[in-house]
């Protein structure tokens, strides 16, 4: 217990904890739909697609949050346009824009020589450098995600059930899909300062996927995912503090590790259940 109190005594660690926990709320709410709708590749691509927006924001001196959000919206809009207007499949459109936006981000970064530190923080996060302003911005973005998730629960559920059914129920599947992509962008923006654009995907997919192994209702997946994400944050920050590992990467690593631990536990439980009747019979 002393190790926990010691780790979270410094103010920067407390800010890291609060910032990461807020990120977990946003990513769990949106990540649940990402996992259930099969949007993992798009989520990953969007997480990288925000880089040119952030790079331009740093270069021109405006808010990286606005830059990231605009870049994510532009990317998700272009994915929709390419897949709707051409015979190109959606995953190909995502792949094209994923590489295109990443390349653009790196080109912009490579033109600015003093960018090395910012780029590292951008890609891998700087969880120990989370400021009070960052936390305030995260809180606003997460509050928007929370309200929209509650208000749009029915359209999202109907869309995930079946797009045509959603339309006949008046749940406007196109608008729901667009809103979901906007929330995905917002949750990435709300999290990248703490955990980085390369690793935010770990929180978007890891805890919701793990939760979906444990519980079988959408709201329960959201709540369980948030708890699992919080556990990954605390464990990740503790390991980072005591062993000097990169904070964001350790958190993301734990969130993915949870999935395989739960999966292995479930498989063992199933195997034991199957072997029991045989043992009784013997």
């Amino acid at each position, binding site marked *: 217990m002393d190790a926990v109190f010691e780790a979270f005594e410094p103010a920067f660690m407390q800010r890291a904890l609060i910032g990461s926990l807020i990120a977990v709320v946003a990513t769990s709410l949106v990540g649940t739909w990402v996992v259930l709708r099969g949007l993992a590749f798009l989520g990953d691509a969007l997480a990288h697609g925000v880089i040119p927006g952030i790079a331009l924001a740093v270069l021109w001196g405006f808010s990286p949050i606005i830059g990231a959000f605009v870049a994510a919206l532009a990317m998700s809009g272009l994915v929709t346009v390419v897949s709707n207007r051409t015979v190109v499949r959606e995953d190909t459109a995502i792949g094209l824009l994923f590489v295109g936006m990443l390349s653009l981000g790196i080109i912009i970064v490579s033109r600015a020589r003093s960018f090395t530190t910012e780029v590292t923080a951008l890609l891998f996060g700087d969880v120990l450098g989370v400021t009070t302003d960052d936390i305030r911005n995260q809180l606003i973005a997460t509050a928007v995600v929370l309200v929209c998730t509650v208000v749009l629960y029915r359209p999202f559920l*109907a869309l995930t*059930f*079946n797009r*045509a059914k959603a339309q006949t*129920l*008046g749940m406007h599947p196109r608008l729901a899909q667009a809103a979901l992509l906007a929330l995905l962008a917002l949750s990435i923006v709300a999290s990248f300062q703490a955990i980085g654009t390369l690793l935010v995907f770990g929180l978007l997919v890891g805890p919701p996927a793990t939760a979906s192994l444990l519980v079988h*209702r959408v709201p329960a997946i959201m709540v369980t995912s948030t708890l699992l994400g919080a556990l990954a944050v605390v464990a990740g920050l503790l390991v980072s503090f005591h062993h000097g590992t990169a904070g964001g990467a350790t958190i993301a690593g734990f969130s993915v590790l949870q999935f395989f631990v739960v999966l292995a536990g479930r498989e063992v439980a199933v195997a034991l259940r199957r072997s029991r009747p045989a043992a009784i019979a013997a």
Partner: protein
Amino acid sequence: MPVAITTRRLEVRFGDTVALAHVDLEIPHGSSLAVIGPNGSGKSTLLGALAGTLAPSAGEIAIGGARPALVQQSTDVDRSLPITVRDTVSLARYPSLGLLGRFRAEDRRAVDEALERLAVDDLAGRQFHDLSGGQRQRVLVAQGLAQGSEVLLLDEPVNGLDVVSRTVILEVIDEEVAEGRAVVVTTHDLEDARRCDAVLLLDTSPIAVGTPEEVLTEDHLRRAFGGRFVRVGDEFVLDDPHHSH
């Protein structure tokens, strides 16, 4: 009986491909229409156009009353969604509840009645995807009923089902027609088509529309299906390798 569904020169295109053309229909309340035709003949396209999920490229559709209830095949539902049987049927109440409206007593009653009529009330707490194919299809029909629409559109509702599920669904369809609903059913089964008041034999455009006796003739079937049907006694049976009956 007043007319529930009217279409005039209805046409649906996917790009340059005409999927459905020249469909003129008048379906009264309290009647059923079977839509039959080979694969790719436009049956599901017609259902989609009537349901409002596909926009007509030409012609008109007029549906009386509230939005029609579309009953899809259970394979159309995303398998990754964890959802109970009750929640699946409850989705049907969303049009009257909106985004945040609370479930009222009448909504719960509509869901309970639909579950009972399809004999899936004992499965209400089970996960939809844990059920057998026949049970899942009954749940989707219950979902259609719970919507309380005057028009019921069913996409191959008894295709390949077990005897119990097939019997339950066909009885419910008959009851819905008797209660004044207009029911449209797509099917590959001539026997199921004969149960309906009217039949539309489709091959992109209508080959024949009328009573089962008028439509399901050897000449019409040959035009729609080529040689893919056989005569058994006085009746015809489709020899369709893509469907399990």
